[in-house]
């Protein structure tokens, strides 16, 4: 039978090279670049001859001139229809640039102001025996780093399971209280962070006669983290097609086993995003910690019995001293916090990407 099938002819295709005809030609790139260049030259001149003054004026004029140049160019190339497209794309690029600007400038500022107080002892010592304006080579943020890690860990242990189970209730069980629960979760995500702190303070520390402690702090952070995790996880679980749930059930799985084996793994990377957003929500919170962990200069690892420190609170307290060296330490605290959160995100992504 297979003898009847003709052999595929061996042909040589080496003379054809891959091309990208949809890319701009060098000439077009040069024309585009020249409009930017013209705008760069024109805008200072315009600023000189008009009442517009200062850096802001310069930037605004540059954007305006570049936009006009871009629009004229696309009109010349493709006619009237292209103008709308050109205006829209200019605004989109502009918006993306404007979003990038504050993010980049925050990173830049924190790094520039934070790096020169960094020493080995920043990560190995606390402030128990060092004055806040003591030399950089003494004292550090160890107690605050450990405090933040402890708070984030306990808060996650509380709110990740509850948040994901809540999301599963909303998307899989769809029980009678679905509407009410969704409303409450939304309302909860609007709770101001200081109110979360005040609540734990009044109930646990004043009411029940408890201590300022890591646990109290973690509880107040959980109130903020829970709705973020639950709502994001719900959105992600909603995206999993019903086909998969039906396939799982049609194979003889119970609803619970289908959820655990099929639905949640399919949504795994989204659920990790939910956790990351939750951690991001609380890692930098300061207000609720003022009322629940109080702050401390010593390293304390028991979360139940005494005040502890955390990086946002460490930064806040040092800034308030007004002393130059202390302010440098505060910026270092902010830098360490940012790096710590970054490391947590990368770890979470790695954990979610890896096969079991």
């Amino acid at each position, binding site marked *: *039978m*297979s003898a009847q*099938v003709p052999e595929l002819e061996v042909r040589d295709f080496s003379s054809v090279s891959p091309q990208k005809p949809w890319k701009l030609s060098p000439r077009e790139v040069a024309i585009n670049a020249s409009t930017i260049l013209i705008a760069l030259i024109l805008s200072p001149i315009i600023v000189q001859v008009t009442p517009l003054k200062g850096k802001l004026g310069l930037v605004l004029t540059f954007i305006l001139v570049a936009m006009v140049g871009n629009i004229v160019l696309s009109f010349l190339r493709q006619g009237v229809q292209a103008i709308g497209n050109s205006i829209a794309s200019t605004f989109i690029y502009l918006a993306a640039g404007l979003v990038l600007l504050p993010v980049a400038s925050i990173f830049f500022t924190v790094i520039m102001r934070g790096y020169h107080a960094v020493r080995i002892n920043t990560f190995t010592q606390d402030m128990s025996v060092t004055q806040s304006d003591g030399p950089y080579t003494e004292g550090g943020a160890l107690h605050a780093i450990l405090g933040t890690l402890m708070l984030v860990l306990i808060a996650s242990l509380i709110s990740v399971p509850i948040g994901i189970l809540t999301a599963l209730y909303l998307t899989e069980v769809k029980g009678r209280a679905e509407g009410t629960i969704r409303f409450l979760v939304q309302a909860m995500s609007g709770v101001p962070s200081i109110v979360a702190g005040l609540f734990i303070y009044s109930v646990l520390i004043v009411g029940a006669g408890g201590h300022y402690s890591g646990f109290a702090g973690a509880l107040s952070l959980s109130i903020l983290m829970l709705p973020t995790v639950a709502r994001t996880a719900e959105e992600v679980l909603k995206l999993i*097609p019903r*086909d*998969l749930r*039906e*396939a*799982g*059930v*049609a*194979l*003889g*799985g*119970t609803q619970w*086993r*289908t959820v655990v*084996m*099929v639905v949640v*793994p*399919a949504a*795994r990377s989204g659920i990790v995003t939910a956790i990351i957003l939750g951690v991001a929500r609380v890692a930098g919170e300061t207000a609720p910690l003022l009322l629940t962990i109080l702050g401390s200069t010593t390293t304390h690892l028991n979360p139940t019995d005494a005040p502890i420190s955390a990086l946002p609170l460490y930064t806040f307290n040092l800034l308030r001293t007004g002393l130059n060296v202390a302010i440098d330490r505060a910026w270092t605290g902010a830098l360490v916090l940012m790096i710590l959160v970054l490391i947590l995100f990368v770890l979470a992504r790695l954990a979610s990407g890896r096969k079991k």
Partner: protein
Amino acid sequence: MSDVMEFEGNKDNISTKAYLEEAVSQPEISSLASVASHHSAPGSQPLGTGLEARGVHAWFGKHHALADVNLDFPAGTVTALIGPSGCGKSTFLRTLNRMHEFIPGAAMAGEVLLDGKDIYEPGTDVTKIRLKVGMVFQKPNPFPSMTIAENVLSGLKLAQLKTTNKDDLLEECLHRAGLWNEVKDRLKAHGGSLSGGQQQRLCIARALAVKPEVLLMDEPCSALDPGSTLKIEETVRQLIESVIVVIVTHNMQQAARVSDYTGFFLSDGGPGQLIETAPTSEIFSRPKDPRTEAYVTGRFG
């Protein structure tokens, strides 16, 4: 590879008439086989084996989608369900493994007997029913988080079944679904990395791994190329030794090629109904109902 070629070659040489003759001869052979092989349920009569729908109705909310369907699926046979779009074929299929109740607002009436027992009897374990009555969906839906091998064996985990030799089962199911040769070197690849036709055969292998008594297939080939379609049809013909197959199809040639019996559904504005059911060759050569004739000859639908 070569068996595929031969199968495709056959298609060109043998006319539809030959297929029909083959289809006619099938029920006799297989009904003999079924008497011989199905004496598993002690106490029940031999006639009680197989699947049987009695007076089945279905509703979506207030919408009466399906009315009074009586249909027998004897052991060792393939039954095709045909009919215009929206006449309730999928709905009927889903009442046979209790997937209908998965839809909010759904309701049903009537009985579905599996080996003589009503699957809707109060106290019945739904998961056991779905384990015995497997399903292949119109759109391929492999589990995206699992590898090819894990997909095939997923039913065992979902239903918490024990197997002695997973590797043998894996190979056997992939062979039966006609997929083994294409995936044997990449069992660890993700299910989503296969082509649409391969994904559908993976879903068939997955459904076979839990050893169902009945396999329901809802337009399993509607998104597939002729080659994959023929492979799946070949698979279906091989399955009849151990599985009762019910297949919904819009393709008359497919119904003629794979099925022993054919049921024609129609909805005349009201709920869908089973108009006629008969051995496939009769439905296509001398249908009793003029509406069936009009449909199979392509005059409406």
